């Protein structure tokens, strides 16, 4: 029998929980169909999370899950131009027509879905995105030119989290678009995800005792993001999130991290999110999202 997990119609960090619940309900045997036929839109977070699900389910069940592509050709084209299918081909048995790309990448896509496995990949990512990011951050978002340097730093640190802690590869994607309902402004979104060991497992050997019975996915995320602790005892470690937070503080940006059964968010006045959610459906690895909004004076 084939179990079906529906991809939400609009797949982003908010609707992700619906998808994660579907994945968590999968039994240990049989085939799995990830059904995206009705999906009309996916954020960078949605796309990289979908790849995580493909990797994790494939490893768990010993067979690649099926993936039906969106029935809307424009959506499928968009996913193709965002580089999704290049990575998905190895993880899913894809059903439906995948367009052959003749067009350049979508103009709003700052960085196509890109694998991150080793430090050299982080260099490539930062190198590839820097010029385009500079143009979009300054001209479209109205940020000062120096935001570009901080943006590169934040992107690098987010990707290094995979290299240093995940125990497996992951993906990054960066896109600029308008958050009409949530913010009414242009934003640049960085999504970084892996299906690795997750924060709790990574930090457990050095942090679990300190937290005692409270220890779990939520406290692990708090320790990493708020307290800047790392699995290494060296005081120089764990500075990546501190750097990211400083950059986001300056530009009113937001970070969310979902790992295991918890999700932490550094929220802003423009946002209606909650700081910490626990007891969510289990999902492997870690999924990060950084949102950098346009300067308020540049609001659309």
């Amino acid at each position, binding site marked *: 029998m084939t179990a079906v997990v529906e991809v939400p119609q609009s797949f982003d960090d908010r609707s992700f929980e619906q998808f994660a619940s579907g994945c968590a309900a999968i039994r240990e045997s049989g085939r799995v169909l990830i059904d995206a036929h009705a999906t009309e839109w996916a954020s960078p977070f949605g796309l990289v999370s979908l790849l995580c699900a493909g990797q994790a389910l494939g490893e768990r069940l010993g067979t690649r899950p099926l993936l039906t592509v969106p029935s809307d050709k424009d959506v499928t084209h968009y996913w193709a131009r965002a580089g999704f299918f290049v990575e998905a081909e190895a993880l899913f048995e894809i059903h439906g027509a995948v367009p052959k790309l003749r067009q350049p990448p979508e103009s709003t896509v700052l960085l196509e879905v890109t694998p991150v496995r080793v430090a050299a990949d982080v*260099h490539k990512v930062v*190198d590839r995105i820097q010029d385009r990011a500079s143009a979009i951050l300054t001209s479209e978002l109205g940020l000062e030119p120096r935001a570009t340097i901080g943006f590169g*730093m934040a992107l690098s640190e987010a990707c*290094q989290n995979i290299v240093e802690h995940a125990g497996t590869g992951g993906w990054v994607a960066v896109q600029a678009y308008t958050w009409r309902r949530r913010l009414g402004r242009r934003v640049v979104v960085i999504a970084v995800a892996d299906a690795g060991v997750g924060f709790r497992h990574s930090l457990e050997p050095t942090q679990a005792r300190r937290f005692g019975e409270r220890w779990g996915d939520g406290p692990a995320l708090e320790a990493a993001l708020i307290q800047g602790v790392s699995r290494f005892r060296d005081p*120089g470690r764990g*500075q990546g999130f501190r*750097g990211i937070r400083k950059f986001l503080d300056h530009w009113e940006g937001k970070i969310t991290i979902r790992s295991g059964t918890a999700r932490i968010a550094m929220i802003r006045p423009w946002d209606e999110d909650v700081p910490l959610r626990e007891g969510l459906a289990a999902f492997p690895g870690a999924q990060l999202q950084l949102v950098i909004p346009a300067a308020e004076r540049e609001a659309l």
Partner: protein
Amino acid sequence: MITEIDVRAVLSRSVCEFHSDLVTRSTGRAVRSGIEAHLLEHPDITVVVLDFSAVRVLDCSCADEIIAQLLLRSRPGAATGRGTYFLVRGLDEVHADQIDEVLRRHGLALAAEERGGAKRLLGWTTDPMRTAFDCVASHGSALPEELAAELSWPLDEARHALEELAGYRLVMRADAHYLPLTAA
């Protein structure tokens, strides 16, 4: 002897000639090793100016591996240390903030020159240290008595501030005088 090291050039030699970004821990380790190898070949160097002018992105991990580890490992008494003095030049304001954060975490400090020419101390410092440093930098040298007179500080306080700067290797001591590192 004082020497200036173009960090971007070390990056080219050590990692990849096409990179302009100092990102990742492994890159930081490679660049630090390149700098340490250069210093080993030139034992007469006492002051090193690390030039970041051509560096685009600097992340915290790389800054930690290059700068914090260079300072820690070059301390007199450290395994590889011979008491080399370091200062940094050509920093963007964002770079300076990153390095400042990294050094604070280790309880280290460093003299820096930003791209606009402004001199500042980064890392773990106190108000008296910063004031005394500005004074030494602007006058080119200072005696405790001169500092005390200029700032209307008690002599002990002036001497203590200068000794702290020397202890953190932010100025050099020559007899009773305290000198900026660039005076070496």
